[in-house]
């Protein structure tokens, strides 16, 4: 079976297997700090992937996505810290809160596109942030909510890491199914030309709402994972910067791919938490990284790597035209 695959596909499979293998082995290799970071990066990666489903596949860049994941996280936080409910209720309320936010946001935003979509979602994100500060009894305002324990089965950091790994890989696979389904293909049509899609008889408004809900689901999962990872939630989780960082991670890694946002998330989490120990001007470093990537690897790191790989693969061929942006071969569905 493997032999029938192209070299590229085999390399990808190999990398995916290595990635998963490393993921499984990580707690036996790394200490608690690194495992915590990897958990955080996996969650950030899932969040960026869900942004990428909107931004990279459907062409709808959102700057309010942390509003969705944050609402879910607050749902869990409220039930745990203020209502003292059990874990099932916590997670159920978290899902309910996140999906309700996604539904409301989606209905509000579904008629916009382009920059206007960015702005509607930005306003939505700001409203959630405003609520998180204002609704003191529910959210604890600026101080946030503390005392959100993990379920006993995943209490230890490495247990929680494995849970995160499984959930993220599962979501990744689900996202892979979504983007490769007919619905996923129609999203690309939406990205290329909404007018053409409507002429073809697609209900583009409904399509946008569906994709918003699907993306909202994955954002909700990431929000719930995050609140249990930190045991804490405060307005900093829903500020504009949180949404923006998600978008940046997706673009940095390679928008329109699923592996790109994950790579982007790992890099940014690493810069924020590790590089910042050694480099005091790390925001400058991060900003420069964005600029360099945009200028020299326009399709993100994954695009650059894929270009380089193709060049190497065809190094003996006559020069071939570059493959068009975001064809199926540079959009990996697997990890």
């Amino acid at each position, binding site marked *: *079976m493997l032999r*029938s*695959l192209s070299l590229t*596909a085999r390399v990808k*499979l190999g990398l*995916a*297997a290595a990635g*998963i293998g490393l*993921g*499984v082995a990580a*707690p*036996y290799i790394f*200490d*608690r*700090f690194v495992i*915590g*970071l990897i958990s*955080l990066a996996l969650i950030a990666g899932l969040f960026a992937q869900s942004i990428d489903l909107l931004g990279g596949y459907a062409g709808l860049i959102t700057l309010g996505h942390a509003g969705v994941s944050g609402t879910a996280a607050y749902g869990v936080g409220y039930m745990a810290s203020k209502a003292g409910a059990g874990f099932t209720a916590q997670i159920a309320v978290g899902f309910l809160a996140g999906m309700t936010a996604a539904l409301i946001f989606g209905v509000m935003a579904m008629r916009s596109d382009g920059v206007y979509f960015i702005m509607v979602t930005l306003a939505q994100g700001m409203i959630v942030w405003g609520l998180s*500060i204002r609704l*003191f009894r529910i959210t604890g*305002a*600026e*101080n*946030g909510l*503390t*005392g959100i324990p993990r379920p006993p*089965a995943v209490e*230890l950091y*490495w*247990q929680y890491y*494995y*849970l995160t*790994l*499984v959930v993220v*890989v*599962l979501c990744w*696979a689900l996202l*892979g*199914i979504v983007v*490769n389904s007919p619905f996923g293909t129609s999203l690309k049509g939406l990205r290329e030309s909404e007018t053409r899609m409507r002429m073809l008889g697609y209900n583009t408004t409904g399509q946008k709402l569906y994709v918003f809900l699907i993306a909202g689901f994955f954002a909700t999962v990431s929000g719930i994972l995050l609140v249990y990872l*930190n*045991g*804490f939630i*405060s*307005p*900093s*989780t829903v500020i504009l910067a949180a949404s923006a960082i998600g978008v940046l991670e997706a673009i940095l890694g390679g928008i329109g791919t699923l592996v790109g946002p994950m790579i982007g998330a790992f890099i940014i989490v690493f810069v*924020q*938490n590790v590089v*910042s*120990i050694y480099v*005091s*001007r*790390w*925001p400058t470093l991060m900003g420069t990284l964005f600029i360099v990537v945009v200028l020299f690897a326009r399709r993100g790191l994954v695009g650059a790597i894929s270009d380089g790989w193709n060049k190497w693969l065809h190094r003996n061929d006559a020069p071939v035209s570059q493959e068009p942006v975001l064809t199926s071969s540079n959009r990996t*569905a*697997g*990890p």
Partner: protein
Amino acid sequence: MRRIRFVILISIMAMVAAACSAPDAGDDTTTTAAATATTSGSVDATTTTAGAAETTEAMAEGCDEPIRVGVLQPLTGGLAASGTDAKDGFELYWANHSTEIAGCTVEFRVEDTGGNPDTALQKVDELVQNYGAQIIVGELLANVTFALADRLKDNEDVIFMSPIGSADDMTQRNPFPNFIRAGGWTSSQTSHVLGQWAFDNGYTDVASMCTDYAFGWEMCGGFTQVFTEAGGTVAASEQLWNPLGSTDLGTYVTQLSGFDPDAVFVLQVGASVSDFFQNWSDFGLKEQIPILAGEVTADVSNIRNVPVDQVEGLISSGHWAEGRDAPETQEFVELFDAATGRLPSYYAAATWTAAQYIDETIQAMNGDLSDKAAALETMKGLELLTPFGPSVLDDYGNPIYDIYIRQVVVRDDGRVWNVVIDTYNDIDQFWPKSADEYLQQPVYSREFQGNAGG
């Protein structure tokens, strides 16, 4: 081909599931030896650095391992200036005192949180697990302090000191076990005193304008409760709350001028401080209505760039007064000024004092901090003369200080600082009530300002 990819993906996930169950089971009593061994290896490795070294050396004089202190402050982003002051204060102490104490070496590392609790939680793990910090000196933001205290509360190998983060309940209704506020304060502690002073000095009708978050509620509540219980009036309708980080406070200043009060209690932070004074003087109110400022609003870090005429004469209360005429204060002020070219803010004084507490505690414990509970008790028992003045800690781990009524004056070199015009001695966080009586009431909030007038 897509299907193949997916099949393989699923099977790999099955492997993951299998792999997870192994270490999971390792915690139960009955499993393979291999899994147990590896698991404990990976989990315990983290605690050995902090735990084993101390327990084995506990009896010996001095120590092989240095005593490590981790400091977390925002060094980038909007709070970078305050965070840098805090960092400088801490570093300055150790630049002027030996790091060899009772045969032990003190090492420390300052890390940047960017003011973000998520980052702070990662960094504190790094400091505790990898660096082996036994003492964490905490952040200046309340939400980050809460997050850190929650993360560290079950860790018996770490003392969490919060010289700046001042949320009332951390040493009142919801204390954290290994949390101590040496060098710190509670938000309402200093404004209680200002409420009494304001009443004693003839003000009867005061309006307020405070930032709309926990710190603002506590500062403002402290003033309002003591002032109104003494007999003054603060009408609830004349208490304005502006959101944290509001741009342009002109609207609020216009409203305040309409209330026509005897004085206005003001608590602003960050850029809103200079925004407020700018508006206050532009609207021509500086000569008409006196301002009584909460500690941070008059802190030198917030007023040093404000045009001098806008803040000259400003009255505030505080546990810190850089212009206080006492050798223990002026020695520090001169050192800090010489090293950084700035007059020290309370952030700098706080971390210096925290360092002083660490130094004295290690001396008193003769270099052995292995028993953190004992170390905490020792720290609580210290009576120190700090840049703040004399400092002892109450049962809740919060300092009892002299609180100063301060006034902004211009120094000979043209810079402004706060000098002491009145002193209230030995003020604890509950003053003027007893702890028992005080703790009956809820923590100050927008709804509960302790307003005796109703």
